[in-house]
């Protein structure tokens, strides 16, 4: 037995040690050398699951109902093994959405519904109250046993005498302790690294203490486990038999129910959600926790049965099964081991109370009180610069109130249930969160209304089937309704709802509450419409593990003053930025967060400069802590992309217009050019027509006016008139030809003809002319035929024109012209050369332009023997030859030194083929 003082000193020392560890953990976190960034610490902190209920209650449950206690740990093991899928998703979402609690998580999933958050927070407080009461009970009972063994006084449970109740003082001391290291400062992420460190330490302490008792039972009290089991089998045959699966209350069904209950509660209990999800610093830590935590559970349960059996064997010396862990070493007369057990139990209880209270106080302040206060206009909290003082105050008050409520529950009805029973009532309440939480992770269609309806109905069923009967059984009201149903309605009996009898009360309650919970969640979701916000959040939650979902994290976090300064400086210029920062430029290493007011002003300034959508995007690129709802992000992106799309289309249109404009400009230029050419052509035609006309008129007038004129001169003048008239009509013919060629109206009648023969005809036609001009014509024709498809009249015209031209440009003193025909495989070529001055390279294409005339030398021009050309002969010739599928060009002279014009036509196919092609032509 220990003295009161001794126990108190040890207990307070332990709490002080915890505080030191927590402070150390916090300091390390502030220094950036986090201790909790370790998968082992993470796994150990999850062991907050093992509370005083585990520490004391497991043995109690094992002693009374056999193996069923294992289910409470099998459930979490299952949950942990599937953790990589489910928990990782929750961790990922909690990180990106800055989730602070399970109430926040569920609220965020369903469109950040404040109402749903309140509901969850409220349920959590109600559900956890018994659980906290359980811890208080465990601490006071263990303290009482430790100090008064073997005759502990019955706990005095009455409100009038609460100052004498140790549990009240325990609650108060813990409240102070939790306030001291749970709400020292407000962390934006709601992480409590110091707390996690302390919790991990506590997990080690309780494991060590429990194993110590187990070893003591197996190896000190008895020579070994085998001996213990053998003795138990001999002395307690009934107890030994009870360690069978069939002995679990409710049978297989109960076994299954408890397993599900434990699995769900492991995730949905506020403290579990806190350590598993909120306090997780790295989702990779889940990998080790997935096996390390189940291993921890295995170790802590290893000695449950030996201790239970040893306790049962101890008889009256060990008393209540819930206390075996403590009474077993006490009954053996040990001093140090009971103290260690007490510390172990204390650590189990305090760790649960610390985490649970912090988690609940966060929920209460964030989900219940602050939203209400912010709506309470007379407080003017919206305008308040810093709400953190309010938040801390609210949380501290909440911590005290939660512990007081826990104490009240303990004081009023704590005696009605054993430790395990109280725990399971809480489990059943917490598991009501599971449908909304888990379905929400995978089913996008789950809606806010569905979740609220399911939760509300589920918790009402829970209250009716577990909580209210619990109150009744502890003597606060008549228990008649349990046996007969309310108002005699047997169907509504809380332990046999709708006539479902024979199940253990937890499975029964779980069945009905889950049935209505899931039923309403699914049913209402199917028939209710999700708001836009709900849809976005649902998509973000269900798609959290997809790679693209990580981008959502960009919008989260804190704004660093320096980053904000750089952004503004870039877009607003230095003077405006400096004004905004009150004249102080933040240093690059200054990572103090910018105030919301500053961010708001910055955004305002940027909006003025860049428009609201861009400003929000820019601000969000540096502000990673602003609670910007996804809907507005999406709408920004939407408007931006719409604008971009609109801009893109405008750009496209303007490019198209520009292209059309360019085409029009080109067409216009082309038209102008054509118009200019037409004007030029008309002017040239006019000029060319006027020239012979001038001569004709002048000589006609001369002849008409002349009284006496020598006959010879008269004849000469008349000849000129005739020649010029011929020239005029030739010119008109050629102009018409050219017009026809250019408009495509010239009708050619291609037929098979011999180019060589046509050349002979051309030579015959010009012979007289050449003799007049005393030009020597050399003709080199092959003996073979050269069949071509051509209009013979037109081709002859071209050949004559070429020979005529050549004679004009041949050397004036000894003019010579050469005509030669070369027959190739697929084509025939006619060369017409002269020995004149030739055509320089640059002029070679110009000779085919209309009215282009190579300037003739004065002598040739002056001689009068050679009438000038019209300047249309070559353009017409080329037009005709092109029409016939051939080519006409100026080439280097081959045999003479002057100009050389080459005419090329494709050889016509053979006679047979010719008729064929003629047929084709005719058809």
């Amino acid at each position, binding site marked *: 037995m220990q003295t009161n003082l001794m126990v108190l000193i040890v207990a307070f020392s332990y709490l002080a040690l915890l505080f030191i560890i927590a402070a150390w953990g916090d300091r390390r976190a502030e220094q950036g050398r986090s201790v909790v960034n370790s998968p082992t610490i993470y796994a150990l902190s999850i062991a907050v699951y093992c509370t005083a209920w585990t520490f004391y209650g497991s043995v109690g449950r094992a002693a009374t109902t056999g193996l069923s206690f294992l289910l409470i740990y099998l459930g979490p093991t299952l949950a942990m093994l599937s953790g990589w899928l489910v928990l990782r998703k929750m961790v990922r979402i909690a990180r990106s959405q800055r989730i602070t609690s399970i109430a926040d998580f569920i609220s965020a999933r369903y469109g950040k519904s404040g109402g749903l958050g309140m509901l969850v927070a409220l349920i959590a407080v109600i559900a956890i109250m018994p659980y906290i009461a359980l811890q208080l009970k465990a601490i006071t009972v263990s303290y009482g046993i430790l100090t008064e063994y073997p005759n502990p006084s019955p706990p005095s449970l009455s409100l009038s005498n609460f100052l004498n109740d140790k549990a009240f003082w325990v609650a108060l001391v813990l409240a102070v302790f939790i306030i001291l290291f749970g709400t020292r400062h407000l962390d934006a992420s709601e992480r409590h690294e110091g707390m996690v460190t302390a919790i991990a330490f506590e997990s080690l302490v309780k494991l060590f203490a429990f194993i110590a008792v187990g070893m003591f039972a197996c190896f000190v009290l008895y020579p070994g486990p085998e001996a213990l089991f053998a003795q138990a089998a001999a002395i307690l045959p009934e107890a030994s038999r009870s360690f069978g699966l069939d002995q679990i209350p409710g049978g297989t069904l109960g076994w299954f129910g408890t397993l599900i209950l434990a699995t769900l509660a492991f995730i949905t209990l506020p403290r579990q959600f806190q350590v598993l999800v909120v306090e997780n610093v790295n989702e990779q830590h889940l990998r080790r926790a997935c096996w390390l935590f189940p291993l921890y559970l295995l170790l802590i349960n290893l000695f449950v049965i030996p201790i239970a059996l040893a306790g049962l064997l101890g008889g009256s010396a060990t008393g209540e099964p819930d206390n075996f862990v403590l009474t077993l070493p006490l009954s053996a007369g040990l001093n140090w081991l009971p103290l260690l057990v007490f510390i172990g139990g204390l650590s189990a209880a305090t760790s649960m109370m610390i985490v649970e209270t912090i988690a609940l106080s966060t929920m209460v302040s964030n989900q219940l009180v602050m939203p209400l206060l912010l709506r309470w206009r007379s407080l003017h909290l919206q305008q308040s610069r810093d709400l953190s003082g309010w938040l801390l105050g609210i949380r501290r008050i909440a911590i005290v109130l939660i512990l007081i409520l826990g104490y009240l529950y303990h004081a009023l009805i704590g005696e009605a249930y054993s430790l395990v029973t109280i725990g399971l009532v809480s489990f059943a309440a917490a598991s009501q969160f599971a449908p909304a939480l888990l379905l929400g992770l995978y089913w996008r269609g789950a809606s806010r209304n569905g979740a609220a309806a399911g939760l509300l109905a589920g918790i009402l069923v829970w209250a009716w089937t577990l909580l209210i009967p619990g109150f009744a059984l502890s003597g606060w009201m008549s228990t008649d309704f349990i046996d007969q149903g309310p108002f005699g309605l047997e169907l509504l009996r809380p332990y046999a709802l709708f006539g479902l009898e024979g199940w253990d009360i937890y499975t029964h309650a779980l069945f009905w509450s889950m049935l209505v919970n899931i039923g309403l969640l699914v049913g209402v979701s199917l028939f209710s419409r999700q708001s836009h916000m709900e849809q976005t959040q649902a998509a973000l939650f269900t798609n959290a593990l997809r790679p693209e979902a990580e981008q959502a994290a960009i919008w989260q976090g804190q704004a660093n003053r320096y980053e904000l300064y750089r952004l503004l400086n870039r877009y607003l210029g230095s003077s405006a930025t400096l004004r905004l920062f009150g004249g102080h430029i933040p240093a690059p290493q200054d990572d103090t967060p910018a105030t919301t007011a500053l961010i708001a002003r910055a955004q305002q300034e940027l909006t003025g400069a860049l428009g609201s959508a861009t400003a929000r995007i820019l601000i969000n690129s540096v502000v990673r802590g602003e609670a910007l709802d996804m809907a507005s992000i999406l709408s920004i992106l939407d408007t931006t992309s719409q604008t971009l799309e609109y801009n893109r289309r405008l750009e496209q249109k303007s490019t198209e217009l520009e292209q059309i404009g360019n085409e029009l400009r080109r067409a216009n230029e082309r038209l102008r050019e054509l118009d200019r050419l037409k004007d030029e052509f008309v*002017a040239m035609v*006019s*000029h060319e027509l*006027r*020239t*012979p*006309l*001038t*001569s*004709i*008129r*002048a*000589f006609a*007038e*001369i002849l008409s*006016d*002349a009284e006496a004129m020598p006959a010879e001169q008269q004849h000469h003048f008349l000849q*000129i008139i005739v020649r*010029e008239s011929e020239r005029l009509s030739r010119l008109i013919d050629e102009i018409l030809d050219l017009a026809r060629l250019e408009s495509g109206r010239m009708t050619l009648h291609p037929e098979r003809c011999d180019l060589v023969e046509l050349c002979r005809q051309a030579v015959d036609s010009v012979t007289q002319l050449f003799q007049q001009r005393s030009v020597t014509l050399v003709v080199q024709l092959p003996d073979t035929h050269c069949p071509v498809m051509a209009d013979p009249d037109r081709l002859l015209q071209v050949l004559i024109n070429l020979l005529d031209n050549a004679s004009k440009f041949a050397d004036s003193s000894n003019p010579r012209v050469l005509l030669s025909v070369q027959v190739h495989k697929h084509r025939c070529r006619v060369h017409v050369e002269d020995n004149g001055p030739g055509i320089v390279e640059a002029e070679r294409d110009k000779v085919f332009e209309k009215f282009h005339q190579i*300037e*003739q030398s*004065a002598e040739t*021009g*002056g*001689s*009068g023997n050679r009438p*000038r050309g019209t300047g249309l002969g070559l353009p017409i010739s080329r037009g005709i030859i092109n029409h016939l599928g051939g080519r006409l060009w100026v080439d280097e002279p081959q045999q003479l030194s002057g100009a050389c014009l080459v005419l090329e036509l494709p050889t016509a196919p053979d006679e047979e083929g010719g008729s064929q092609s003629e047929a084709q032509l005719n058809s």
Partner: protein
Amino acid sequence: MPHVLVVDDEPNILLSLEFLMQQAGFSVATAPDAEQALELIHQQCPDLLLLDISLPGMSGFDLLERLRAAEATRKLPVVMLTAHGREVEKEKGMALGANDYVTKPFSTRELVSRVQALLADTQQGG
């Protein structure tokens, strides 16, 4: 007897103008292009120039410009001949200092009378 120089690249027109001027009682020289015309102007100092605009090489306008630029020929009466009926050509010729302008085909009597009138004017003024 006034001396007239006729410049035209078209031989038949040159022939008709030569005949007309001789008939009108002037001594006549002919040139088929601007270069030969310049030479003859310096050699013979004609009293009047009948000048076609479209000449091979140096055009009638170019020749007129050069004549007006030189002191000796600044006041030489020049009658421009053109086969182009366009107003701009006439304007240009007058602007460059041509004394008269005749469009081809011309009336022989009108041409002769214009030449005579121009010669009379210059002799009176001179």
